[in-house]
């Protein structure tokens, strides 16, 4: 892997870290996407508009990129549609059960040395890698 390969991921990661820090400084909250999305669908939740604004920000980022640099956004995937549906169910259910995802646990939680987040991150990294292994190398579903 060259320096150039690591450059954009590092830059993007730094921006993510900055965004999370900004949210913490301004509103005092953990930048956990699954938590923000999940809260939108609870019957009574405070600061619902604030949560919607955060979620909307991501969508707006997508719209902006669509306009100025669409090549960054994916055009296709070899994964079948039913797999996206199953994946979505698992991601939605699992992130709420585990109270977090890659942003909340992986970035914010680890930055706080949270034992829960460290365990969560190791766990989902492990099962994610295992899943890819099974799909690609056991079941032979090549990309």
């Amino acid at each position, binding site marked *: 892997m060259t320096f150039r390969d690591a450059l954009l991921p590092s830059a993007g990661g*730094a921006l993510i870290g900055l965004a999370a820090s900004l949210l913490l400084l301004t509103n005092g909250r953990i930048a956990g*996407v699954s938590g923000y999305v*999940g809260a939108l669908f609870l019957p009574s939740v405070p600061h619902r508009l604030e949560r919607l604004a955060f979620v909307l*920000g991501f969508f707006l980022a*997508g719209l902006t990129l669509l306009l100025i640099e669409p090549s960054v*956004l994916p055009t296709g995937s070899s*994964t079948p549609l039913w797999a996206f*549906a199953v994946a979505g169910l698992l*991601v939605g259910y699992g992130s709420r059960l585990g109270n977090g995802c890659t942003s909340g646990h992986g970035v914010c939680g680890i930055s706080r040395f949270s034992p829960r987040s460290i365990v969560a991150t190791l766990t989902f990294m492990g099962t994610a890698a295992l899943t890819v292994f099974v799909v690609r190398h056991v079941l032979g579903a090549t990309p």
Partner: protein
Amino acid sequence: MKSLFASLFSGLLFGVGLAIAGMTSPEKVLGFLDFAGSWDASLAFVMAAAIAVHLPLSALIRRRSSPLFDTRFHVPSSRTIDRPLVLGSALFGVGWGLAGVCPGPALVDLATGATPIVVFVGAMVVGMLIQHATVGQSESQHSITIVPQGPNAPVSQDISLADH
């Protein structure tokens, strides 16, 4: 109002960061998770860089008595490793490994209107609703506290939907 804009801008910045990092490409994410295959290690730098930035900044920020636009911080204090945490994370990981999409990138990609992403987000919401509906029915009674609560442990925990 200020807190609304702060949320919006943070989300926007986060989303742009995800896209620049390559996280919004499911194929790239799967390539990173494919350790046994042609491994694309570059995404390791995403989380590493994010933590490298957020770790020191969050430590500094939390020294304040309160955030800028709120009266107090809403940071989880639980340190208990319990079954919902492990099971939930495990399931989340399987889902992530199936399609290479997690919540943040899904929201960014939603702007493209691509059918797989719309399906994913719809299913994700359904999955969340199912979890909300079943909460309390399978709460684990067995938990292992790996870090003992010290004398400074908070009296009440913030059980808002912050990741903890």
